[in-house]
């Protein structure tokens, strides 16, 4: 197993790391003291130099995003930590929020100083009840100690931080829907432009970053952008948290250096696929990226460029592994149910088309598929992608398209078996009872 540099998970297993005293004894809040002596613009330059790209899925350069914020508007600048981690297959931010909240807060403070922001918010998904208590407790400790509030760390910098809990909508992870939700409106994405950097929270300049992105900032300030850039590969600097799940022996969260071979990751870190089974496919970046068949995974590395060249995307590294026991029709039905349920309902193609596709997938899965269904889905994907207000529609069609292209045989077999009158051996999945059983397990 390769030894990966640990920036984010360095202290994650340490006893009591979520408590200020313990975290500080291991070096927390050292960097912010250094940062506060630096010129804010210098920090932005360092972050730009580091090559850090947003870890929420889009991979937009963090430093560049910060540099878009106008500085002389007379309006306050807001910093928002997007902790609405809702992408299916992703659970990395949860670990940071739960076990090392002071790393997250320090990262936010550094970013706030760089942006000269006096108010920041952690928008945390509503289901993260336990992480919420940990983060809130950490913020309370900071206020008590004077690390948040007026004149922090003996400077004249003032910064306030609040936690806002979401109410369970996937779309509120989209930054403008998040802003609407935060303003007390319905969580629906806004038309762009204007972009949040110019007119975001209450029409003020706003920066929205992912938890993992912000947690990288202390390392970059402490060691310089170059040091960060030296980790990983070109265009994909630093380390990446991967949420590994599915048919593997050791599911979990791994911090790997960018550019690490995908197959090595499955074999070494994840302990390989379940015994007696072979790898069928991987969804590497969270559910909204194209699926990769086993044979496509060979020679591909876990970084932005390599994944892109392989026809998929690193996304936020929600790494879902499927072995040959997987019913791909059922798998994509599961995804389409998620997307149609989570469509905000604002614009026509996604609102109507998403459900239409789900209904077709369900029909195929339940043994009522018809010739032409796959063509229809393909056509609907084209009608949705590129025609919606936000990226939800664009990304929703990526797994659909790739599943029916790459598993055409399986889909066609299912449809033709039906036509031949062959009974398919499977019990239709009942999502409602599934939800109930998960709920009652707790």
């Amino acid at each position, binding site marked *: 197993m390769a030894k990966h540099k640990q920036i984010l998970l360095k202290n994650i297993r340490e006893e009591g790391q979520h408590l200020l005293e313990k975290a500080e004894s291991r070096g927390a809040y050292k960097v912010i003291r250094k940062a506060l002596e630096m010129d804010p613009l210098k920090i932005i330059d360092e972050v730009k130099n580091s090559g850090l790209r947003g870890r929420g899925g889009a991979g937009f350069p963090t430093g560049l995003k910060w540099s878009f914020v106008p500085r002389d508007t007379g309006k306050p600048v807001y910093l928002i930590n997007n902790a609405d981690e809702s992408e299916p297959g992703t659970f990395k931010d949860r670990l940071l929020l739960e076990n090392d909240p002071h790393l997250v807060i320090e990262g936010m403070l550094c970013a706030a100083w760089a942006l000269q922001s006096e108010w920041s918010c952690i928008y945390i998904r509503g289901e993260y009840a336990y992480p919420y208590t940990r983060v809130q407790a950490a913020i309370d400790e900071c206020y008590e100690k004077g690390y948040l509030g007026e004149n922090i760390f003996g400077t004249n910098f003032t910064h306030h931080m609040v936690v806002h809990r979401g109410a369970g909508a996937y779309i509120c992870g989209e930054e403008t829907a998040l802003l609407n939700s935060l303003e007390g409106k319905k969580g629906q994405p806004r038309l762009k432009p204007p972009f949040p950097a110019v007119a975001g929270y209450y029409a003020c300049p706003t920066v929205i970053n992912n938890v993992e992105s912000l947690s990288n900032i202390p390392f970059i300030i402490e060691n310089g952008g170059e040091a960060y850039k030296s980790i990983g590969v070109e265009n994909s600097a630093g380390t990446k948290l991967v949420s590994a799940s599915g048919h593997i022996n050791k599911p979990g969260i791994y911090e790997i250096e960018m550019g690490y071979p995908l197959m090595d990751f499955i074999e070494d870190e994840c302990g390989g696929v379940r015994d007696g089974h072979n790898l069928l496919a991987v969804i590497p970046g969270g559910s909204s990226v194209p699926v990769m068949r086993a044979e496509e995974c060979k020679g591909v590395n876990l970084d932005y460029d390599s994944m892109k060249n392989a026809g998929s995307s690193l996304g936020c590294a929600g790494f879902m592994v499927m072995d040959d026991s997987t019913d791909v029709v059922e798998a994509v039905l599961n995804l389409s149910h998620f997307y149609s349920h989570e*469509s905000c309902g604002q614009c*026509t193609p996604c609102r109507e088309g*998403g459900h239409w596709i789900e209904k077709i997938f369900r029909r195929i899965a339940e043994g009522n598929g018809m010739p032409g269904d796959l063509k229809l889905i393909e056509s609907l994907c084209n009608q949705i992608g590129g025609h919606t207000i936000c990226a939800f529609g664009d990304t929703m069609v990526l797994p659909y398209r790739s599943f029916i292209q790459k598993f055409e045989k399986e889909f066609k077999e299912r449809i033709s078996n039906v036509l031949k009158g062959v009974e398919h051996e499977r019990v239709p999945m009942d999502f409602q009872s599934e939800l109930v059983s998960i709920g009652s397990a707790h």
Partner: protein
Amino acid sequence: MAEELVTLTIDEQEVQVPKGTNLIEAAKQLGTEVPYYCYHPHLSVPGNCRMCQLEVEGAPKLMVGCHTQAQDGMKVRTQRTSQAVKDAQASTLEMILINHPLDCTVCDQAGHCKLQDYHYEYNAKPSRFLEQKEHKPKAVPLGETVMLDAERCIACTRCVRFCDEVTETGEIGLVNRGDRVTIAVKEGHELSNALSGTVVDLCPVGALTHKKWRFNTRIWYTKSTDAICPGCSTGCNVKVYERDGQVVQVKARLNEDVNKEWLCDEGRYGFGRFLPELRITEALTCESGQPVPCDYTEALKGLSSLSSPKTLVLLSPQLFVEEYALLTALKEKALANASFVVAYRERELSDVEKILVSPDYAANYKGALFAGLPEAADEKALEDKYTRALGQLKVGAFDQVLLLGDHALAPVDIDDKEIQEALGKAHTVGALSHLGSALLSSVDVVLPAQTILEQSGLLINRGDRLQYSSASVPAVKGALPIWRIIGDISKQLGSEIVSARSDRDLTLSYLGAEKRLEGLTIAQVKKGGVCIKTYSPQSAGADVKDPSDEVRA
């Protein structure tokens, strides 16, 4: 400061528009219709229907016309020259209709529905949707006036934005997500603002309907006319739908300078009040309170006394400008001694009403002032004059009274017993239309008048805008236009002042004779109205002509 202009091409045609204009409006200037549902020029832009997607050179994907501002050098393609745009429009329509119940056969919107229109124009292909449609609540009352059919709704949010942004009452919103999204009234509230019916006009489909007019008639059995609401002096532009002599629906018409596309509930749902059911269709004389039919020419003969002193002429504020002008002539020629007074009274308005409604029931008091009848500096003086005249009437200062129009007394004064008594004592002549009017018992001679809905003519609103209102219902047989009654009275008193044979004749001869409106044509007035304060023959587009400007032989 001159507006900054930008030059762009749309479908390879160059066009100049003010900076900040969106592409829908820019295309309109070239006569190209870009289809849309959610966009409205006077509401915020949500960009949710996706009908107005256009191709912009250099953009990675299609852009929505409502949210994209015209920029210098921009190259835009609409459905006329771009297959991608055509496909997107067809696709949007297919999507929008999959969960729509397609119940056009029983839908009030059928025939004036944007879904139907656009489907025929931009898609017209059969649906590929074979699945079960989503079902949603039907016939949900949102309030006193409006009914919702959630299945027909396309979630364009025009109604929601209207209540949020214009009336600022916020009673309705969207609930749920995805294709379960539904318009709903906030808990414990109902859609009850003074402009609530406007949301039905704004609804591009049949989701919102008027409780008062649902399942009333198919729109293609009606005749529609462009009229001006006579409810108050705002002069809202309306489209009136008539069937069998009855008003079956009233819609707001877009006029940037007057009512945007809004209309108050009182004006809309009360439109029928200008068309009483019990009509006076012949001349009447009243003996001991009982109206008895009499010969019209006989009735006119009893009017000679009007020229004697102590005569009061009470004018409805809902006569047309042309009629006030005739009255000015009548005053000069035969009734120099009479007092001319317009029934003008102000009233209290609620906050929402103030957005649109004027504090009066006097559609054309400005028209009376324009004609110099009576002379008054402002609304206050006008009201004073009227109340003073009523005071004098009560103490018996007038021996003869002429009432012109059903609203020659303000609504609050009609039931005043003292006034009724005073009118009873005087020799009172009324040009009225309503057989159930409370005035009838105190009038000696009644001349059968048409109502404002049966006549066409010019009105001037509170904002000094001259507008043209077309007759929206056919006149009841026997009832005469008020201008003709004025003419006949004048003839009786010895001078011929009316030669017109129709409303249009009268309007044309008025426009021809009025120096202050020199060169103005009916067509120009019809196009959104003309401000009389700033009008000059040069400023008006004299090239605007339509056949209605020709005097019919």
